[in-house]
């Protein structure tokens, strides 16, 4: 099992500052490209080569936007201060799946869940945490992702189990890309951000393989405030 106890030290603070700066520089460029692409989209007939070029540019900008999103999320994860309260894990998972509808559909992957309890959390952060864990699984080639939760003392333990490639190296290191390299990977900070979100709630996160070879990301959150 690879577990993690995060601490944002000076070097990480510098990294966060750089991530924020990079996100804004790259994000501005991506917004420009998307803006000009949007101007071209309503045109009527286009020759085949232009059509292919525009589709490629569009795919490229979406991939770059994913990188921007990750960098923004990394920078934001260090200064989370949203409201905490009872949150339905089921509802948070449904929201995460809606946000990743395209990615799940393109990957042909399915998310299934048992009855999920409530946890004491910042709802938006919990949704982002689940989005990151699902996307890490998708980038590892998972086709089946299961989510389950069990009470554990005053906490809730949530397990995200998938059939994708296992992790290598330190999965919680930023930019590690421990579980995949495809177009879904983004900046490779999904597990780093997940770790920070869980720590913000006073929980722990770990990555493990079960007896059947599935990869299990498990994290704990307070059951009540």
């Amino acid at each position, binding site marked *: 099992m690879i577990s993690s106890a995060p601490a944002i030290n000076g070097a990480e603070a510098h990294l966060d500052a750089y991530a924020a700066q990079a996100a804004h520089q790259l994000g501005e460029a991506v*917004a420009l490209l998307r*803006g000009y692409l949007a101007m071209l989209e309503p045109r009527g*007939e286009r020759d085949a080569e232009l059509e292919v070029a525009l589709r490629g540019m569009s795919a490229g900008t979406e991939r770059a936007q994913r990188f921007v999103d990750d960098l923004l999320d990394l920078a934001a994860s260090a200064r989370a201060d949203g409201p905490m309260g009872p949150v339905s894990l089921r509802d948070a998972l449904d929201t995460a799946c809606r946000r990743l509808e395209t990615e799940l559909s393109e990957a042909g992957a399915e998310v299934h869940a048992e009855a999920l309890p409530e946890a004491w959390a910042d709802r938006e952060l919990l949704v982002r945490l689940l989005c990151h864990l699902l996307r890490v699984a998708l980038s590892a080639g998972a086709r089946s992702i299961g989510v389950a939760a069990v009470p554990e003392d005053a906490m809730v333990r949530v397990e995200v189990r998938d059939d994708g490639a296992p992790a290598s190296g330190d999965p919680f290191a930023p930019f590690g890309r421990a579980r995949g390299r495809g177009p879904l990977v983004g900046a490779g900070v999904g597990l780093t951000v997940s770790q920070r979100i869980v720590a913000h709630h006073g929980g722990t996160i770990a990555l493990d393989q079960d007896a059947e070879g599935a990869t299990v990301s498990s994290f704990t959150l307070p059951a009540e405030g």
Partner: protein
Amino acid sequence: MSEKELEGSGSRGDDPLRVIVVDDDPLARRMLRDVLQDAGIVVIAEAGGGREAIELTTYYKPDVVVMDLVMPGIDGIAATRQIVDQSPDVRVVMLTSSDSEEVGLLTLRAGASGFLCKSVGLDSLPRALRCAREGEAVVSRQLTMRLIEGMRRVSEDGAGMRPIRSPLTPREWEVLDLLCQQRSTDEIADTLVLSVETVRSHIKSVLRKLGVRSRQEAIRCAGRLRSGLVPTSLAEA
């Protein structure tokens, strides 16, 4: 228009300005909200991203949306385009750390009423937003100069000028521009490297969308659309 003029105009300047603040940074949102509320502006909602901004704008119909540029998912320019398309009465003012004129011009093309750099200071923001509600452009002098330079490059017949919202596609506008230059169908086909049949189809579509019966009527309608004399909704009807 000055703030005093706005206050005494007896128009919407008397009503509290209703604003949605959009920024992915919660600290930035809080700072903006405090500045605007101190100036008597009602911040009716906040959004952390473009998608949320579009949804909240559709629901609340604010006077003005203060929009960030770089955000997760849908960026500020794309969100502006959708908001202006869905809610033409809502003004969008982009407030960003970017001072790029290129970004500014694209933002205005997307339908924003203003483009402000965060470095100008937030003290002037309340007045800028009130001006935006009254239909004024909120842009820097440098950006205004770029717009003037662009206008000078436009030919006298207005070819190349487009209303922000139009029932015509960009290709149909190109065909209409050439019609305005009294080009024949064959000449338009040569210029745009299209078949004559395709050009005829575009012209037919232009006439139908503009609600006119002849090319000359379409040319006159184009002039009115460019000058804003005809609401595009009428042309769409």
